[in-house]
C-alpha cells in the first residue's frame, strides 16, 4: 500500500495525538497552508443526558483550518458532540461528560477553563437563524463590544470586515441601521456567521446552518464555507450528504452515539470502510 506524503504526515499527527483513528490529509492541491494540526482532540469522550449516553467514547482529532462535516441519522449525537466543543450543553442541567476533549492543548471541560473565553474562540452558528432583534450593525458589533471594543471607528471596521467575509456586505451596506429581523432567512443566517466572525474565533461550529434555507441561500452559505476554509477550523453538522461531500475535507459519521467512521470526505463517500456507513450514504437505511 502506497502512501502519499500527506497521508504520512497525517499518520504522524495521528500517532502523536494518541488517537486510535487513522487520519488522512486530502490530496496536495486541496491542502491548506499551516493546516492539519489537531485543533480539537477528543479522547474517550462521552456525553450523557442523565443516564443516556448520547455520545460514546469518541476518539478523534479535528484538524485545524479544514472543514469537517458531521453526518448521521437524527438522534445519533452529532449535534451533541458539536455543542460540547463550546460547552453549549452546559445549558442543559442533566448533561455531563466523561473523558477529555482538548482545545489547543487545553481541556475544554477543565476546572480552570473559562467558558466565556472559550466561546469567544469557538464561535457557533445555529440551525435556525437567530439574529438579535436589533439593527444589523448592532448585531455584528455586539460581540466586539462585549469584549471591550467601544471605539466607533474600530467597530465600523470590524462590522464591514465581518460582513465582507460573510458575503453580505453588498446586500446590506446601505441599511446597517435597519432591524436585522427584516432580512431574509438566508441573509439572516449569513448575518449570524458574520456576527460570529466579528469576535475573531478560531473555530466555527455550524449546526445544520442551511436546514431552514432555500437552495439559493444554501448555495451562498456553502460558497461562504468554501471562502472561509483555510482561515478557520470549521465543523459543520448536516443532514444533507451532498452538502457534506461538497463543502468538507473530512467527514465524521455518527451512528447511535458511536463515531463509526472518520475519514477524508472523498474516501468516506466513495470507499467507506464500514458497512453501516455504506448503508447510510447509499440510502439503504432502515
Amino acid at each position, binding site marked *: 500500500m502506497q502512501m502519499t506524503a500527506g497521508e504520512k504526515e497525517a499518520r504522524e499527527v495521528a500517532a502523536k495525538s494518541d488517537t486510535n483513528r487513522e487520519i488522512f490529509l486530502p490530496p496536495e492541491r486541496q491542502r491548506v497552508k499551516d493546516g492539519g494540526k489537531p485543533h480539537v482532540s477528543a479522547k474517550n469522550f462521552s456525553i450523557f443526558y442523565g443516564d443516556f449516553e448520547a455520545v460514546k467514547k469518541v476518539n478523534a482529532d479535528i484538524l485545524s483550518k479544514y472543514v469537517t462535516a458531521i453526518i448521521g441519522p437524527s438522534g445519533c449525537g452529532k449535534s451533541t458532540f458539536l455543542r460540547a466543543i463550546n460547552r453549549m450543553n452546559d445549558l442543559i442541567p442533566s448533561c455531563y461528560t466523561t473523558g477529555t476533549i482538548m482545545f489547543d492543548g487545553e481541556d475544554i471541560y477543565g476546572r480552570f477553563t473559562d467558558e466565556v473565553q472559550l*466561546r*469567544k474562540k469557538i464561535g457557533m452558528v445555529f440551525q435556525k437563524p*437567530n439574529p*438579535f*432583534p436589533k439593527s444589523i450593525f448592532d448585531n455584528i458589533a*455586539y460581540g466586539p463590544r*462585549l469584549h471591550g471594543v467601544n471605539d466607533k471607528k474600530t467597530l465600523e471596521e470590524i462590522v464591514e470586515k465581518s460582513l465582507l467575509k460573510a458575503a453580505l456586505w453588498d446586500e446590506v451596506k446601505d441599511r446597517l441601521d435597519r432591524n436585522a429581523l427584516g432580512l431574509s432567512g438566508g441573509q439572516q443566517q449569513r448575518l449570524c456567521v458574520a*456576527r460570529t466572525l*466579528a*469576535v475573531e474565533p478560531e473555530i466555527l461550529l455550524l449546526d445544520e446552518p442551511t436546514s431552514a434555507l432555500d437552495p439559493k441561500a444554501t448555495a451562498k452559505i456553502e460558497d461562504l464555507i468554501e471562502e472561509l476554509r483555510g482561515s478557520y477550523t470549521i465543523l459543520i453538522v448536516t443532514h444533507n450528504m451532498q452538502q457534506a461531500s461538497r463543502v468538507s475535507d473530512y467527514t465524521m459519521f455518527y451512528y447511535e452515539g458511536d463515531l463509526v467512521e472518520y475519514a477524508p470526505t472523498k474516501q468516506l463517500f466513495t470507499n467507506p470502510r464500514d458497512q453501516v456507513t455504506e448503508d447510510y450514504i447509499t440510502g439503504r437505511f432502515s
Partner: protein
Amino acid sequence: MSKSTTGSAARSSASSGRVKTIDIVNKGLKSRYRKEKRFRVYGLLSIIASAVFLAFLLSSIVFNGYSAFLQTYIKLDVPVKTGMINEQNPRRSDFQGIIKAAIRDYFPDVTERKDTRELYSIFSSGAAFQLREKVLKNPPEGDTTISLWVPADDDVDMLMKGHMKRDVPESERRLSDKQLRWIEKLETDKRIEKRFNTTFFTAGDSREPELAGIWGAVKGSFYTMIVTLVLSFPIGIAAAVYLEEFAPKNIATDFIEVNINNLAAVPSIVFGLLGLAVFLNFFGMPRSTPLVGGIVLMLMTLPTIIIASRAALKAVPPSIREAALGVGSSKLQVITGHVLPLALPGMLTGTIIGMAQALGETAPLLMIGMVAFIVDIPGGFTDPAAVMPVQIYLWADSPERAFVERTSAAIMVLLAFLVSMNAVAVIMRKRFERRW
C-alpha cells in the same frame, strides 16, 4: 378506541366493495362544520353576556353617581361689621354666628327659636368655614357685605336633585313644610342653584355629605400604590430572574416555587393580619399610613408579579440565549442584554394585574387601620390616610341618602384612576416592545 373504529370501517369497506376514503370524510364533514359553528356561537354568547353585564354595571354606576358631581349652593349676603372679626386673631372670630345673623337677616319673619334652628339646618355647616377662608384671605375693612355661594345641607341637595319628593306628607320626608317654604322663597329669588361640585374633588372625608370629598382617598391610594410599586416591582423581578435563571433545581427551589404559587391564592386578609403582627406590632410602624398599607399590598402583589415574570422569562426563545452565549456573553450579560428586555413587556403585564388587584383591595387594609375616618388629606407616606375602596366602603355604609350617589361617584373616580394607571403601563409596554 379510534383504532378499533377505523379497523371496523376498513373491514366494512372491504365487505361492501370499494368505499373511498373521501366518502367517509365527506360524510363526517357536515357534523364537523356544525360542531365548529356551535362552538363559535357559544363563544359569541359568552362575550355578549359579559358585555351586557359590564354595560349594566357601568350604566347603573353612572346613573346613580353622575348627580354627585353637582351640588346645590345657596347665595348668601353676609354683612360683616367692624367688631365682628376678632382683631387680634381673626381665626377665632365667631363665623358661625355671622352666618346665622346673615340667615336671620334674609328671613326676618322667622323669630321662634325652634324655627330658626330649622332654618339654619338648610345651610351646611361648611358655610362658616367658607366665610372664614374668605375673610382670612382678604380681611374686610370697615362694614361690608360679603356675597357667598354656600353649600346647602345634603337634605336640601337631595330635594333639589329630585331624590326627595315634595308632595308626600310631611312625616315621610326629612324636610318640614316650613323648610320647603323657605326653599321655595330662595328658588323664586334665584338664590339657590346646582353647581359643579368642586368640593367632591378637593376635600377629604366628612360626616356631612355635602362637605365630603374623594381627594383624600385618591391621594392615599396614590401614595399606597407608589409604595407597592416601588417595592414589589424590583423585588418581584429580581426573585423571578433568580429562580428562573440562576437557582439550581433542587428540593429547596421546588419548595419555594410551590409556596409562591400558594401565596398567590392566599386570602388577602391574611396578609393584613401579617402586616398587623409584623409591621405594626413588631416594627412599630405608624398605623393607618400609606407606608404600611403599601408594604402589606406589596406582599399580596409579589406572587402575581413573580409568577407572571417567570412565565415571561420562560417565553424568551432559547435561540436568543444561545446566540448571545455563542459570541461569548457571560450569563449576566445574556440576562440583562437580551432576556430581560424581551421579557419586560410580559413582566409589565403581570405588574399591571398585580397593581390593579392591590388598588381595589380593602381586606388587608382593615387590619392595619386604614378604615379609619380620616378627614385630613394625607401629605406623605406616613400621614394617616384612607384609600379609595375603603372610602367607598365607608360611604356605602353611611345612612345619609346623599352618600348613595357619592358612593357611585367614588367608584367612577376609582375606575378612572385604574384606567389611567393601566394606560401608563400599556404605553410603557408599547414603548419597550417597539424598541425591540
